[in-house]
């Protein structure tokens, strides 16, 4: 096996996350490159959720729609994932589930119920119908009652019934790995590491795993073997990567108000005081952003994370940071909008908002991360840009990256240094914090509270020492000083940092931004296409030459084509094709490839909507 995807589905809060972690870690320990993605409802317990773990011999960038093995922890999973196991793949399911009518699946919402009922022939079909469909599609059915198995294995390992029930995740993983003939020791290692803080639990789960291995026969074919050693690889998600990137660039202060999926980052830092970051949970996003601004004015490197609704509440203060030339980083974790929308699903719907957030004109930078690793590097870059150019930087990422976990080589932290910014060499008495004598618009700075000096900061237009002014000439001079930062920043970055190009000589260029990069690159393998990943949305790279004479295809996660509009605004070019997705599910390699093939064959419409995903 070169490329294997395992999926586990079941009710939210039922342990499937742990299952995916264990499966991934067991494979990672065997030298596989693994990546996992998580799909879940906005619900704490009971609604359908699933995770995919993809294991490969080389690092990858995206996920498939169809999997090699689906471990279904409940009946709902069986009916929801119809058609999503590859022919020749494996379905592990509870044989008891077959007897349930669809109407008994309490958490199946009415839209899904109607659609699945119709797909299974109408009426109130039994789950059995679904199993038959899988079989018809060439899926190998493995009836395995996981819950009873957990009970039995757990009790055999000496646990009471309730505790035994809790090993269901380990059982699902052990059963899967046993079927695949993967060495038990590697799972044991994963269990020990995962439950390191609770040796008793680790021991119980180890015993349960062994018991399951003893009971489950390996499949006849399609086995997975260890392929090497993990070396120093880390297994990390986009949220933690982003947190670390900020720490690498000197983060000292983070205020936050909880919001999915942005909170994992501050929550992680809060739980790890060794990060050296002062993390404060506050009363709302208005407090969060203004507290960070205050900390930054006092000289701390400050950052925030949020998603759409919270970002909306921060826009007034974004302009305040811009006008007062206060370094500030916001990692904006995009999720399904508008409004509360699809809060646990992915989207790239906040680009237009980020570009225009805040009334009036003021300099800001907007960059977008392509991958989990980018979340690290871009977070650090954002911090340094904010510091050097004294402005707010919006770091766009999304739910898909936040909840995506991958093995990576450790980040090269030595390569990152906190930018010192432009500091005033000396200051005594009234200090011209907003000096018009400012190279690239950047006035040398001392933090508020610097002994022996003083100045003012105001959200009104101001003079060089920070007092309010309404003088028309001074106003223009200040506006022009601030605006000068955009060119300076662009020059400092250099063209290479602003976009990435693959095969740019091709006649047809796909353009994407943020997390579309991964899937675009995997989907175009072997096709005669080029790909441009636009990393900076503001300032925008100079792409005119690169795209001149080419047919352009834009790929993005929003209905209106926000990036496509930006492209036209910046280059005058309208893309020939716009491929979008806005149902909240990540783009899969299959559907993007199909869209690319349609483009190449000339059968693609100008506007194409991808609709895959569960």
């Amino acid at each position, binding site marked *: 096996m070169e490329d294997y995807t395992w999926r586990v589905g079941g009710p939210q809060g039922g342990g499937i996350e742990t299952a995916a972690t264990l499966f991934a870690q067991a494979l990672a320990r065997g030298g596989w490159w693994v990546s996992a993605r998580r799909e879940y409802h906005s619900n704490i317990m009971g609604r359908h959720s699933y995770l995919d773990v993809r294991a490969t011999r080389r690092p990858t960038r995206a996920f498939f729609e169809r999997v090699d093995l689906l471990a279904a922890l409940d009946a709902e999973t069986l009916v929801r994932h119809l058609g999503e196991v590859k022919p020749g793949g494996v379905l592990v399911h509870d044989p008891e589930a077959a007897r349930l009518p669809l109407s008994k699946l309490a958490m199946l919402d009415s839209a899904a119920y109607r659609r699945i009922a119709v797909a299974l022939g109408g009426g109130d079909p039994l789950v059995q119908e679904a199993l038959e469909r899988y079989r018809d599609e060439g899926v190998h059915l493995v009836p395995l009652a996981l819950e009873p198995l957990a009970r039995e294995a757990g009790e055999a390992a000496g646990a009471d019934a309730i505790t035994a029930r809790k090993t269901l995740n380990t059982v699902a993983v052990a059963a899967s790995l046993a079927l695949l003939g993967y060495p038990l020791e590697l799972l044991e290692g994963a269990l020990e590491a995962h439950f390191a803080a609770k040796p008793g639990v680790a021991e119980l789960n180890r015993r349960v795993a062994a018991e399951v291995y003893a009971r489950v026969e390996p499949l006849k074919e399609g086995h997975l073997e260890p392929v090497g050693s993990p070396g*120093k690889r880390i297994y990390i998600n986009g949220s933690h990567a982003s947190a670390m990137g900020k720490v690498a660039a000197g983060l000292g202060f983070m205020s936050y108000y909880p919001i999915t999926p942005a909170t994992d980052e501050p929550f992680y830092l809060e739980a790890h005081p060794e990060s050296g970051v*002062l993390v404060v949970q506050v009363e709302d996003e208005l*407090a969060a952003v*203004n507290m960070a601004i205050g900390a930054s004015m006092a000289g701390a490197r400050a950052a925030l994370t949020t998603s759409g609704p919270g970002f909306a509440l921060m826009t007034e203060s974004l302009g305040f940071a811009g006008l007062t030339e206060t370094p500030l980083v916001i990692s904006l974790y995009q999720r399904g909008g508008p409004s509360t929308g699809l809060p646990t699903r992915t989207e790239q719907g906040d680009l237009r908002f980020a570009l225009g957030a805040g009334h009036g004109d003021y300099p800001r930078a907007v960059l977008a991360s392509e991958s989990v690793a980018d979340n690290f590097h871009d977070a650090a870059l954002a911090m340094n840009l904010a510091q050097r150019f004294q402005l707010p930087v919006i770091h766009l990422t999304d739910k898909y990256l936040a909840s995506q976990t991958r093995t990576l080589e450790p980040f090269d932290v*030595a390569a990152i240094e906190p930018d010192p910014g432009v500091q005033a060499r000396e200051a005594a008495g009234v200090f011209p914090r907003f000096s018009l004598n400012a190279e690239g618009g950047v006035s040398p700075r001392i933090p508020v509270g610097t002994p022996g000096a*003083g*100045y003012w900061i105001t959200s009104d237009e101001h003079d060089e020492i920070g007092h309010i002014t309404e003088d028309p000439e001074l106003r223009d001079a200040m506006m022009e000083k601030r605006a000068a930062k955009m060119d300076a920043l662009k020059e400092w970055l250099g063209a290479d940092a602003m976009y990435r190009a693959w095969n740019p000589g091709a006649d047809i260029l796909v353009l994407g931004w943020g997390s579309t990069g991964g899937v675009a690159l995997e989907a175009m393998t072997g096709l005669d296409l080029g790909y441009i990943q636009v990393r900076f949305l503001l300032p925008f790279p100079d792409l005119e030459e690169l795209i001149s004479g080419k047919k352009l295809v834009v790929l993005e996660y929003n209905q209106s084509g926000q990036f496509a509009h930006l492209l036209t605004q910046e280059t005058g070019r309208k893309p020939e094709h716009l491929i979008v997705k806005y149902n909240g599910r990540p783009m899969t390699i299959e559907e993007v490839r199909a869209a690319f093939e349609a483009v190449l064959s000339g059968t693609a419409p100008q506007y194409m909507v991808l609709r895959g995903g569960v």
Partner: protein
Amino acid sequence: MELKLADYKSDLAPDWCPGCGDYGILSALQMALYKLKIEPSRAVLVSGIGCSAKTVHYAATYGIHTLHGRPLPVAQGVKLANPELSVIAMAGDGDGMGIGAGHFIGAGRRNPDLLYLIFNNAVYGMTKGQASPTLELGAQPKSLARPNIQNKVNPLMLAFAAGFTFIARGYAYDVKKLAHLMELGLRHRGLAMIDVLQPCPTYNNLHTREWFAPRIYDVAAEGYDPLVPREMSDEERAERMGRFTTKAGEWGERIPTGVFWQAQLPSFEERLGEYLPGYPADAPASRPPGGEAERVSALMRGHRVAQ
């Protein structure tokens, strides 16, 4: 060099209306800072938006004139990042009790070591005299088209409910006493609020100097003791709370000023210090650069596939 009162005055001439109470508050603050010999460059004044908010420009300290309703969060950010500074937050009554009321509650729960001044003129001065949250129901200053149909909120009661550990009221035209209150507030370790009654002669023709003068009195003069001991019996606590509530609620013929409540509880900085290595001595704004790579490496260790 010996500090002088003049060292706290900036070169800018205030543009408040003649007779505005804000002049008195500014003077009192300068006097209090001077009295406590707080280095001007170690004091940070943080205001919102409104007539009151201009105050920061007239003091020769650091001054941050933020957004409407946001002085408290910005002030907390400054203080938490650099706990060595003396941070004074100030807000108009609209600023602090209207659009900023949520932060009032949030800050009260935290008890950061700040002084917070409410410029209570019962109107929105800067936007031409609309009713502020401290204007009584039924009152109609000349700037209103009809009598006020919203009830007023009492900053003292609200501060109490939010958990402020120092709660006081002053009067803008009694500069000396106000300066003394500010001194006490600055000395207090924790969140100190002073509700400053501030006449606005331009828009509020009800709460004038003439109206206030015969009403204002000092609770201390009546033997009121605001100090709340750390340990109290239930009865004692009940008695204190009752006494506070009564005094704080008094308004009309007599208007009490002075300190109403002062409790000693750990400040937010102290509480943070229990979990954050080295804090507050080693704070984000004062930490020397370096060590980032080690911090990230320490975090990455927790993510290693194999240890």
